[in-house]
């Protein structure tokens, strides 16, 4: 099976969703999302037999190939996108908004662009997809966001320009690599003979692009604003998928192309990642807006993943991939929880919540499970990821493990602090209806995934391990 088919389905889906009109748009989008999920699972099954490549010439001069390649690492990210997509759509369907056809079409388009990022093996093609993914999310935030128009426009514009500026450094690096090797192909770039200075600059250029998008401290200031201003689907696309796009890119492009610089800069980037983890955990304590709170929680978690990647050990990378997937699902649960509360209480402020446990037992269980997963209680998927990362870091230095491990109790501290304020205490006067079927379904799906892989993560490890070993081989050459 041709892997381009997933891209085609998503693009066609985006167009058809727009054409189908407001009434049918959610259903058409959901249909295409499910078809995508089915095809990517089929791709996974086929993958074990044959490798999956697809390549045609796109531009003759400079030589740009429309070349896609799916190894285990790409596949797991495509799977994450395509499985999360129906769930993200499910969080939105029960909630009508104006111009639905455009919204759903943009969501599918965004998935298209991100899938392109995960699959492309040509640097310029990759860059095109990378930037393409920025356009839909900008409009989603501006058109359907929360708060006043001018404010959300400002946040979205800041985000757009900020990440765009970072990406330009990456484009510069890609063009420089082209002048050195005469090709944009991944393999050629891996094998480019770069001096240590060149590697350092290229590493930094990539790092700017990724550090802003992941985000790593201190490049994170756009995050809380945009997460807060974006509508739920926007936040989910950003938090669950777009940050993974940058993390994936660091694995795929940054480390193998500039391995010596990766080793040389390890202390710096690891320190920044770990500062992000601790900083996010502490700042979250004082956030009164629930979405901002989760944004900072997310900052801590992606910092954890970044630390795993820059540990440059097999366990670190493996843990990072596991935690990427786990965090993708977990963050959907957390933000959806905040949305469920918002829909009922009509306020995003933690100080105005409380006592929900007495009114909505089902929601309490669901929300508690998500919180437990996010603080990595054993048997949750997040635990497997975090623990593997911590062991990966241990191989670098015990101090990194201990420092990043502080998130075990700092994370528990801010999460339980929030849980106590939001869910516990005396029942408030405001009514709080328990979960609807749609909402319950989202939580059940998420919890099932998190628990299953928490018990049995072997399939994912087996899938990504060869790719990661290959990457490590380049990194340690």
């Amino acid at each position, binding site marked *: 099976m041709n892997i381009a088919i997933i891209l085609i389905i998503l693009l066609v889906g985006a167009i058809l969703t727009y054409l189908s009109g407001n009434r049918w748009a959610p259903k058409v989008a959901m249909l295409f999302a499910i078809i995508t999920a089915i095809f990517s699972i089929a791709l996974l099954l086929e993958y074990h037999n044959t490798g999956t490549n697809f390549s045609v010439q796109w531009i003759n001069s400079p030589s740009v190939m429309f070349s896609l390649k799916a190894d285990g690492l790409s596949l797991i990210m495509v799977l994450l996108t395509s499985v999360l997509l129906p769930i993200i759509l499910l969080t939105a369907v029960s909630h009508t908004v104006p111009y639905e056809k455009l919204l759903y079409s943009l969501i599918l388009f965004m998935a298209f662009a991100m899938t392109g990022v995960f699959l492309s093996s040509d640097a310029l093609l990759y860059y095109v997809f990378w930037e393409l993914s920025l356009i839909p999310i900008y409009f989603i935030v501006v058109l359907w966001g929360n708060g006043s128009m001018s404010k959300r426009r400002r946040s979205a514009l800041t985000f757009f320009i900020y990440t765009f500026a970072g990406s330009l450094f990456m484009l510069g690096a890609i063009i420089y690599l082209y002048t050195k090797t005469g090709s944009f192909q991944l393999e050629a770039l891996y094998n480019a003979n770069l001096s240590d200075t060149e590697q350092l600059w290229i590493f930094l250029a990539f790092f700017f692009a990724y550090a802003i998008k992941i985000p790593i401290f201190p490049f994170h*200031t756009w995050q809380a604003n945009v997460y807060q201003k974006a509508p739920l689907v926007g936040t989910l696309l950003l938090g669950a998928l777009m940050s993974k796009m940058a993390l994936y890119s660091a694995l795929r492009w940054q480390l193998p192309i500039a391995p010596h610089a990766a080793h040389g800069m390890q202390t710096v980037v690891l320190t920044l990642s770990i500062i992000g983890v601790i900083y996010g955990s502490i*700042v979250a304590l004082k956030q009164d807006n629930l979405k901002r709170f989760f944004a900072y929680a997310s900052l801590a978690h992606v910092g954890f993943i970044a630390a795993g990647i820059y540990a440059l050990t097999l366990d670190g990378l493996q843990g990072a991939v596991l935690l990427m997937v786990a965090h993708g699902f977990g963050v959907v649960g957390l933000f959806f929880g905040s949305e469920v509360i918002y829909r009922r209480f009509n306020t995003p402020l933690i100080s105005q919540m409380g006592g929900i446990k007495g009114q909505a037992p089902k929601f309490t269980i669901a929300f508690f499970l998500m919180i437990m997963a996010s603080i990595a209680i054993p048997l949750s998927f997040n635990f497997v990821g975090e623990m593997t990362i911590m062991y990966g870091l241990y191989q670098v230095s015990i101090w990194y493990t201990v420092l990043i491990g502080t998130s075990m*109790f700092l994370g528990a501290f801010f999460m339980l602090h929030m849980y106590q304020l939001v869910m516990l205490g005396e029942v408030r006067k405001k009514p709080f209806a328990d979960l609807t079927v749609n909402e319950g379904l989202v939580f059940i799906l998420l919890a099932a995934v998190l628990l299953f892989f928490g018990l049995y993560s*072997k399939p994912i490890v087996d899938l990504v*391990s060869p790719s990661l070993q290959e990457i490590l081989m380049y990194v340690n050459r």
Partner: protein
Amino acid sequence: METGLVLLLLIFPLVGFLINLSVGKKIGRSLPGIIATAAVTGSFIISLFYFIQILSTGEAIEVHLFEWVAFGEFSVNLAFVLDQLSLLWLLVVTGIGALIHIYSIGYMHDDENVDRFFSYLNLFIFFMIVLVTANNLLVMFIGWEGVGLCSYLLIGFWYKNQQFNDAAKKAFIMNRIGDLGFLTGVFTLAYLFKTVDFATLKLALSTTTTPETSALLGVAAFCLFIGAMGKSAQIPLYTWLPDAMAGPTPVSALIHAATMVTAGIFMITRLNFLFDLTPDIQYFIAIIGAVTALFAASIGIVQTDIKKVLAYSTVSQLGLMFLALGLGAYQIAVFHVITHAFFKACLFLGSGSVIHAMGGEQDMRKMGGLKGVMSITYITFLVSTLSISGIPPFAGFFSKDEIMLVAFQNSPILWVVAMLASLLTAFYMFRVLYLTFFKEFRGTAEQKKHLHESPFSMTIPLIVLGVLATVGGLISLPFGYSWLNNYLSPIFSGSGAAEAHGFSTEQMVFMGVSTLIALIGMSLAYYKYMTKSTVPEEDEKITGFAKVLYNKYYIDEIYNAIFIKPIYAMANFFKNVVESIITGVVFGFALIAKGLSAPAKALQNGSVGFYLSFFVVAFCLLIICLFLV
């Protein structure tokens, strides 16, 4: 078959948990308790079956399910083992667990969320079984964190009270600090030996000892001990345990006295082969244990909340167990865990019975004279008090005496500290007894009318535990007649310090001294609270050192000042200052671009005439440049 039966051990409480969680609300008030009790009893019966089996065969049973976590160099199976140690603990956990479940049926009968209570209790039993049957450190960690989670849920069971929620949160977070230590220790071992299996580790440790590894072993042992500190409430991570008394009393009995808090002792006993190789850490453990024992006991003598006294007593007793562990006397520590489980569970349940009768009152200053009304509670409480104080022939005497002996043999200073702790223990325990059950009733008239002996579901567990607290010492008699030592010998690497010793006058003298100390404590309490009929003063009137003790040496306040407040201050600082600075820098770039554009912007003034003139002038200049230059 074998696998299935072992798994059933785990499945029973898990199913009980799921049933009560999903349909508990619909099946009435009494059924959840019965289901939960049945589940735990089922596990108890299976444990008993395997216990009897291992008594005859002596062979451990291992069960491997599937690969759970895969690291680059090794993988970890979800695997369980039933050996002498885990079976012993299983019996304690499920046995006392079942008794406390029965007790809870009566105690929690009026609570509207009784189904949730029992589902959490079953979940706790599940995780506890995972903890004690784990075949490797990471599976043990599942149970280790899982019981912490259940402890959080049960301490904050009455979730409408935010103070209880605070206590629950505190317990969870302090436990997690320990858990970080635990994980770091596990990683150190994994890094050294590429395995976390107990059996493989034991083998590896018995063969390899280079100087480098032994340094790392010290790190591993130290980190693991931090884990034990958190879970078993040792200095400096003990402050959560007294606060944890916010939970319902059966929870305090089960989790915060008999089972969960002994997990640290279990873990160190399990890893005895590691700790034997790190004498420095062992000595450190012994010191921490002894200091905790004395420290907590000294706080206990002035507390007026009946559960708080018992909580500090638990911390103190756990300290004694760690003292034994640190001195390499693992089986003595285990022995004391067991006897402690009996008498402390009995004491807690007794106090629960009293609180139940008093309508929720926990302040001993408002009790008194309950002996007449609640005779069963009184008798069991008395027996347990005698047992914990170390009066022969009750169970506590034997285990405590062995700890004292081994302490004296190793270090007289530690022995003195431990002796002081047990003097204080005898004092405050009898203080509780006298204040609660003797003299006049000091509560309100309404409470007095309400006083009653608890129902059978509560008194039967009390009686059973009272009997156990009396005869529990039989499992490890002195003078070499210890069944426990023989039973546990396959677990230890053989170098254990407390080998069977014959009948000796030295030990006889020791027993005499221990008993004498206990009697002194008892007499002091009698003199103060019976002869002089003192009643502890109101909070405001307490002065001097007693005030420091009453306020627990202000440790909570100190922790608050040096940890919690700075964290919040940092959160504020980060939120208001650092965020603004970073945002400022980012926007600074935008502002620089804006500033650079200002002169160029002035040219774009909108006047077409100006544009045209500019155009013509520029064009002329261009022409001139082209042709003249």
